[in-house]
Each structure stands twice: as C-alpha cells, then as structure tokens.
C-alpha cells in the first residue's frame, strides 16, 4: 500500500495509506483520548472524544473515522478541543447515576478516568427515563443508566462473534441496549469484555472485590486445548473474577462462556483435592500412593486375567497435547493396547 506523509502536532509521520488519523497518531505515540474506539473493532464514532483539528477543515473532525491524506496537518490538542471533549464527557455523564461507590468497574472505568482527567465539573442530572434492564444472558447484568451508548458491545457482538444478539434502541438520552435476537446469544461475554464503563457487569463477581484490591494473575484457560490467555482476579486466595487483556494470546480478549464464567469450580468446596477409594460401598479419602498402587495392581490383574485388549483409555480435551501424547504412549507401551480415544474426537 502507498505510504502517506502527514504532520501531527508538528511531528512528521509516515503511515500506510488508508489508516485513520487516530492510528497514525497512536503509531507516533501521540495520545488522542477515546471512549468508543477499540483495537479489535471498526471505528464506531459515537463518543465524540477524538475530535482533532485538520488544516483546511472548518470544523474539528473525528480522528477515528478520518482517513489520512498526504500533507495533512493535524492538531490533537488545543483549548478548543479540550473544552469540546469536556463538553462531550459532560453530556455522557448527564444520565449517569451516582454509582461509583457501588460499581464494580470504578477504578478501571474509562469514563471515570477521562472525566477526572478533563476535570469535568457541575453536572446536574435532568434525565428521567425508564429503561428496560432485560439482557439475553443471565450471567451479565445490564445497567442502562450507566450506559453511555458507545455501541462497543453491539459492534463486538456483530463483528467479532457475528451474532448480532443485541442492538441499540431509542434516541438521545433514552437510547439503550436491548436484546434484538436473544435466542442468538451464546453468553460469551464479548460485550462485557469491551464495555468501557460499568454498564455491563458480571453477575458472579459483583461486589466481591475492587480493581485495585485484587491481584491479577495471567494464566491459560484449562477448558480445552486452544490455550486462550486470561487473567484471574484473585482476592484473599480466591478467584473472584475474570479480566482479559485484549492484546495477548490467540484469543486477543475473546473467551467462550466456559472460559469467562466457569471459574467458580476453582474454589468450590465440592472440588476433589484428594483421591478417593471406594471401600465397603463408600468413598474414602486416601493418599496418592495408595490410590495409584491400587490402579496399577488392578490393571495388572485385569491384563493377566482377560488380556491386554480388555482395557481401553479415554483421554480428556482439558489435558495438553503433551499429556495426551504421554497418555497414548502409556496405553500402547505399558498396557499394550490400541484402544485409545479422546473426548474431543469428531
């Protein structure tokens, strides 16, 4: 693609043609504040934060939607732009409830950060609208008053997951997200992942922690062999939530319903932590040595009595490739049978 040369805030920048002004600025390390723009989504252009001044244009333009042109001269920061951005934020805050003290997102909320950074003052709410809080999945709660209608969730559902389960209805201050095709929802939580505010919160982790209190631990999802990267929110040695940075791993922030919401088993009291052996009809806790010894002796006995093909092995998709390799090796070399199968076989 052709290269385009332009000037942003006095810096000469060369970017591939067809990029947006926002991308060009970011590649040069110049920050333009944004709310609706997301790395994985096409430009949305709903938040009115990324206005920049371009020579030759009378009105400020949205940086996320304007394509670069040769010899373009862009100003990203001026008093006028600062006050425009502040006014945009003030408008977004007009219907925002006084929820920060009880909101799970407070502390890592983009809206909150920007409102503080731009020093927004004197917002007097006057929007009294009734909203519908129904959401297609019971794992996520929708708080319509907190919503700034940035359309990130709707775009993510349509673009990343190709589902289109949710959409926006209403206009202006009464606009809200609603389940357009609830039957299509997969409960994947992609909308939750991209939400910049606390409008979408996870029902399992609500009120359990604060962003600055919990420890974030990077790990790999154990549900299948995909190896999705995820971040567990740990508080007092207990997993209380899940965040996914959208730059790492194969999944780039996406997860399936199991990966994103199925973390409560980790601290479940019903989880087996010691091997059990059925003695006299009841399962009793025992040591690994005794359990494995029993398995080995029984395998030997069966093999001797009924032949090696009387044993079959089924492996799990939750194991890694290496573990599955070892398992088939064990079945073939130690037991001596080719009766090996796997739960994810199609």
């Amino acid at each position, binding site marked *: 693609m052709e290269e385009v040369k332009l000037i942003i805030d006095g810096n000469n920048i060369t970017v591939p043609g067809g990029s947006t002004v926002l991308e060009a600025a970011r590649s040069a390390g110049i920050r333009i504040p944004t709310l609706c723009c997301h790395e994985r989504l096409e430009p949305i252009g709903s938040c009115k934060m990324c206005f920049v001044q371009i020579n030759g244009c009378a009105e400020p333009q949205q940086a996320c939607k304007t394509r670069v042109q040769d010899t373009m001269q862009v100003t990203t920061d001026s008093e006028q732009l600062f006050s425009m951005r502040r006014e945009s934020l*003030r408008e977004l*805050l007009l219907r*925002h*409830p*006084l929820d*920060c*003290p009880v909101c799970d997102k*407070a*502390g890592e909320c983009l809206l*909150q*950060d920007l*409102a*503080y*950074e731009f*020093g*927004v*003052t*004197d*917002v*007097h*709410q006057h929007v009294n609208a009734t909203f519908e809080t129904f959401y297609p999945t019971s794992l996520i709660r929708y708080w319509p008053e907190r919503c700034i209608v940035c359309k990130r969730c709707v775009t993510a559902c349509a673009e990343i997951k190709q589902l289109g389960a949710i959409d926006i209805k209403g206009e202006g201050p009464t606009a809200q997200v609603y389940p357009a095709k609830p039957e299509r929802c997969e409960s994947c939580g992609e909308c939750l992942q991209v939400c910049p505010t606390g409008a979408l919160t996870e029902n399992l982790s609500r009120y359990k922690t604060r962003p*600055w209190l919990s420890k974030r631990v990077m790990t790999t999802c154990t549900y299948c062999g995909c190896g999705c990267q995820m971040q567990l929110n740990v508080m007092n040695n207990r997993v209380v939530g899940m965040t996914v940075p959208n730059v790492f791993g194969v999944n780039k922030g996406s997860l399936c319903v199991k990966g994103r919401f199925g973390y409560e088993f980790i601290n479940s009291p019903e989880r087996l932590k010691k091997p059990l052996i059925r003695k006299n009809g009841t399962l009793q806790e025992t040591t690994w040595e005794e359990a494995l010894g029993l398995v080995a002796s029984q395998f030997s006995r069966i093999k001797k009595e009924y032949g090696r093909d009387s044993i079959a092995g089924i492996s799990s998709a939750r194991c890694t490739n290496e573990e599955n390799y070892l398992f088939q090796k064990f079945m073939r070399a130690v037991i001596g049978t080719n009766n090996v199968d796997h739960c994810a076989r199609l």
Partner: protein
Amino acid sequence: MSETKTMTINMGPHHPATHGVLRLVLELEGETIVNATPHIGQLHRGIEKLAENMNYQQVIPLTDRLDYTAASLNNLGYCMTVEKLMGIDVPKRARYIRVIMSELARIMGHHLWLGSHALDIGAMTVVFYAFKDREKIMNINEELSGYRLTPSFLRIGGVAKDVTPDFIRSVREFIEVFPEALEGYHRLLTDNIIWRKRTMNIGTLSADEAMSWGFTGPSLRGSGVAYDVRKAFPYSSYDDFDFEIPVGDNGDVYDRYLVRMEEFKQSLKIIRQAVENLPEGPVNVDNPLVTNPAIEDVTEDISALIRRFKIQCEGPTAPAEEVYHAVEGSKGELGFYLVGDGTAQPYRLKIRSPCFLLTSALPRLIRGHMLSDVIAIIGSLDIVLGEIDR
C-alpha cells in the same frame, strides 16, 4: 601511683531525659565525659519507604508523626513541597490559616521543650505551667480538626475546611492570655540563679562550628547566626508579617533558652497579625484535579462523585521532577526533597530532619562536661526522636 580508668555507662534508650528513645553510650572519667556515642534508630518506622508506596495525599498523616510536638509544621512543609512539585498556588486565606496553625504548633513545640528541659534540670514547677498552656492550643486543634496532637489539617492545595468564628475567638483568647503566662515562665527561670548556673557556658558552640554541623533553627540562632527560613525564603505569605529573628551571643544552653523564649513572643506576634488580617476567600485551590469536592455535591453531582472517588483512591499525579522545599520547623530547617515520576505516588521522599543533625553534634557538645550537664544539653537542643529516626 593511681591509674585512670574510664567507665562506660549506658544512658537510654528508656531514660526520661533523652526525649524519646535515644541511647547514649557515655565514657566517663570520674564524672567528666570523655566520649559519647549516640545510637539512634529505635523509632525508625521507614516513613520515607512508606511514602513511596502511598499517594501524595496519604503521606500527610505520616508527616504528623515526625516532630509530633509541632505536627502542623510538618504538614506545612510536606504540602508545600508537593504543591511546588505540582505547580499549585494556594489561595491567600488558606496560607494565612496555615500560618496560624503552624505558629500555634511552634508554640506547642516550644512548650514541650520548655517544660521538659526545665524538668530535666530540676525546675519542676515550669512543666505544670507549660503543659497547662499547651493544653489550650491542643483544645484549639481539637476544636478545628478533631485531633489534639496530630491535626493533619492541611491538604494539598489548601486546608481541610474553612475555619469557624469559634476558632478565631479561641485563638484570640489564647493571644490575650499567653503573654502573661510567658512572663510567668521568665520569672521562674530567666533570672533564677540555679537555672543560670546550670545553663550558662554549658554546651557552647561557635557560629562557624554550628554551621559546619548543619545546625539550623533556634540552636543555630543561639550561636549568633540570624538564619530563619521564614525570612530567607518567605513561604506561605510570611513576608506579610512583621517579626524579628532573635539571636544569641555565646551559643550556650542559656542562649538557646533565651532564643526560644523570644520565639514564643514572635510567634504570638505573627498569629496576632494573621488573625487580624485574615483575608476572605476560598481555602482550597480551584483545581478540579486536586481539590476534593464538597461532600454535599457528591450526593448530587456525578462529576463531583467521580472526582472525589479518583482523588481519594488514586490521587493527583505529579510530574517527573525533583524539588526541595524547606520550612522553619520548631527545631530548625525542616526540608522535604520530593521526586515525582509522573504517577500519583512519590518516587522518593527525603526528609531533612533538623534534629538528626543536632544529635550528630551531641558528642562534640557534651565532651568535657559533667554527666549532669548531658541532660541540660540534650534539652537545649530540643530533639524529637520521631523526627530523627523517621
């Protein structure tokens, strides 16, 4: 023939006359001190390390615990350093309130010094009068901030809240009654023959030597050097007030005593001027990133709620720069060297403690004196171990 043997004794850390937990290992020849080694650090709480892991606002209560006898002065020094780093200009009314608070704190600190210094040497009566009057300032502190000893009343960019007419009335009452009390202290000590014998020509330090040892405050002025941070770098509107710097001649314990007694009077003079000329206006800087919004707004205005949330939880950020700012503490030049790194937490906070350097000269001061003079000299330096150990 007789052989001279020295004896080593341990004074402190729990000795009542060491003003805290200072341990002195004294080497005696008879009753004369040959050598002395101060051991400090028993009160080391790592305030500088703690500050690196807090945001700028949270450090203020820690500074109260430096020189706890005059807590507001430490607040003032720290807050002004942060303001210098962040480039904040505090409104005039707040500056005046800060001056009133810190001069009251200075009087409080000197009260404690006077009472305990006299008590150490044997003049027991003074401590009762000094503490009785100190109580009045503690009551004023309590009325204003809720705390008697450690008010933490100052904030970055101003003060916690505006003062009430009751506070002004209490301060005025104190100004009215205090000169008479001060006369009383003078009658008890200044011409007292025992006091003079115990303090004159004891622990003498020349001006040059005092400078070399890093002395500041009343201890330096006792040696005849008229250096006062309030005059040299007039911060917090100190150039609006008319006051003098008392200096001594000989640099002995008695001169340091006289300097501090005169400082009572000068502090009173400053407070009187500040109260009479207290300007109207806001008490916090008009900067939405620094000043906490009023609690009434928080229940109505989402932007105020967000600001309060962010200021309380994260706090304002400071640029990646280094500043040093000093104020005249009750013991000397109390300086803060603050390094920012663009985040809401200090990268490094170094506290220049005047008492630390006063204590370092202790071996020099007490060498050759009698054992009983040690406590007179320690008392005259007015050291506070909370500030030395940090």
